[in-house]
């Protein structure tokens, strides 16, 4: 057995494999199919201080090797999470990380403060990159000043591990990464979904109620990989890589490009046990190549 544990700031992961926000519910949805406590971490659904109904149906369009979504952060709010969901998930033996969203700096801060009170939530992932909400969301993630402002404000009230999730819908993702690092983010995760669109030719109408939506799945992997590589050259803080991962091989590629850990999103829909296969595959890869620890492959790309 190779050593699979890695650290993201103060956060200890038993292995680098985690599941991405919005694709894995609160973890319990998958518990019939796999032992979810084997994961390095679970990023739960996007949470906002107030409840949100999300966007109207239809919210999904399939693409070859991926999908577009326009869920729009439907959730029952931070209080509901704390009172009704947290008690169900707090004893799962893995890192349960809450993905925090807002529509203004104040609402990001309020939500982060509310989640900070929950003892068994060791980290938050600040979502400044959701393309599916009108206010806030991605608006903060596409400029350095917006990203800095929200991270600075949340950093003041959030003492635990602060991960900032970056949008690929920018000219230069490394600038945003540097900006959030400068404000004290403990890590960055990338990428969120890429802005896309689907049209129903027969009906001459958009497929999604919101016309545009977020693209994810294997089709975005090369873009995500490139962005992880570029970002790893630009910042010192750990990077959590995601975007289209569907196998252990993809995970190895992201780690070679500089990711300390990875998340699996859309592919959970295709194979709910994919993350377990990735953990086992990473171990096999390390053994096969004589690495004592998976940490040896982080950024080990030879160019």
């Amino acid at each position, binding site marked *: 057995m190779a050593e699979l544990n890695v650290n993201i700031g103060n956060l200890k992961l038993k292995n680098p494999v985690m599941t991405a926000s919005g694709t894995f519910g609160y973890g319990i949805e*998958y518990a019939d199919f796999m032992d979810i406590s084997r994961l390095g971490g679970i990023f739960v659904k996007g949470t906002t201080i107030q409840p949100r109904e999300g966007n*109207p149906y239809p919210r999904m369009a399939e693409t070859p090797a991926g999908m577009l979504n326009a869920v729009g952060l439907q959730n029952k709010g931070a209080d509901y999470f704390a009172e009704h969901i947290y008690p169900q998930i707090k004893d799962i033996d893995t890192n349960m990380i809450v993905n925090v969203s807002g529509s203004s700096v104040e609402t990001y801060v309020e939500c982060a403060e509310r989640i900070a009170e929950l003892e068994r939530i060791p980290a938050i992932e600040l979502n400044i990159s959701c393309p599916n909400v009108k206010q806030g969301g991605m608006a903060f993630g596409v400029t350095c000043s917006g990203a800095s402002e929200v991270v600075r404000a949340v950093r003041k009230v959030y003492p635990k591990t602060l991960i900032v999730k970056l949008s690929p819908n920018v000219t230069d993702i490394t600038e945003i990464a540097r900006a959030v690092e400068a404000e004290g983010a403990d890590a960055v995760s990338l990428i969120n979904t890429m802005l896309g669109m689907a049209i129903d030719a027969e009906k001459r109408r958009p497929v999604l109620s919101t016309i545009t939506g977020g693209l994810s799945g294997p089709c975005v992997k090369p873009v995500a990989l490139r962005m992880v590589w570029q970002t790893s050259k630009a910042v010192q803080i750990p990077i959590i890589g995601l975007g289209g991962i569907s196998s252990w091989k993809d995970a190895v590629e992201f780690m070679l490009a500089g990711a300390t850990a990875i998340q699996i999103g859309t592919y959970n829909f*295709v194979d709910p046990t994919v993350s377990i296969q990735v953990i086992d595959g990473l171990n096999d890869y390390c053994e096969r190549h004589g690495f004592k620890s998976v940490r040896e492959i982080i950024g080990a790309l030879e160019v």
Partner: protein
Amino acid sequence: MKKYMLDLKVAANERLHPNYCLLKLRGDEALPEMHPGQFVQVRVEDSPRTFLRRPISINYVDRERNELWLLIQLVGEGTRHLAEARVGDSINVLLPLGNGFTLPNEGDTQKLLLVGGGVGTAPMLYLGACLKAGGFTPTFLLGARSEGDLLQLDAFRAWGEVYVTTEDGSMGERGYVTNHSVLKEKRFDMIYTCGPKPMMMAVARYASAEGIACEVSLENTMACGIGACLCCVEKLKDEHHVCVCTEGPVFNIEKLSWLN
């Protein structure tokens, strides 16, 4: 109910119609308990443009042969690919998913009408079989475009009386299910329906006007099928979005915003 991911073997693939196939999938071990109205998420492998699983209703569960039946209408690449499956092929499914139809209490003397249209007849067969096993005698009202589009009629007849409408009048009464004379001749206490949305809406309006309880089965597009992605939502009367894959696919029409 506990959900499973299983590799099932194709025991038969019957082309009932140019556009429909009946897949009979056999388990190595006893298939888990499944309720009528529940569905399965079928993985479609080696079909380049099919990425996500396909939600398909439970058509029938043959306990003696340990078979799960899926009635599949060929509409796009994913379903066409499934229709090519050969005996012995392995098909990966997640099951049983969602909430099924509400069965009446044992001993109730309810008159039950099961209305199916197009591929929406699929869940009605297993529902009819379970009702019959529970001591009820269901009545089926099945609609199709033409005689050749009415599938599995003998199987339906094994569980109850079958009435038929076709749009061209080639079998049964001409017209839509909601025009059938059986609705005037008999009084039903409960209607279950699945089919194209306009048909289900017409059935729901009829049931509501007559004060008959009614459950419909929705077919919203899905990604995960297990309540994780929130893509499949339906807005209920109370304005809240709920997941069709976990709260449905079967809903009482009282909850839906359709009749407003």
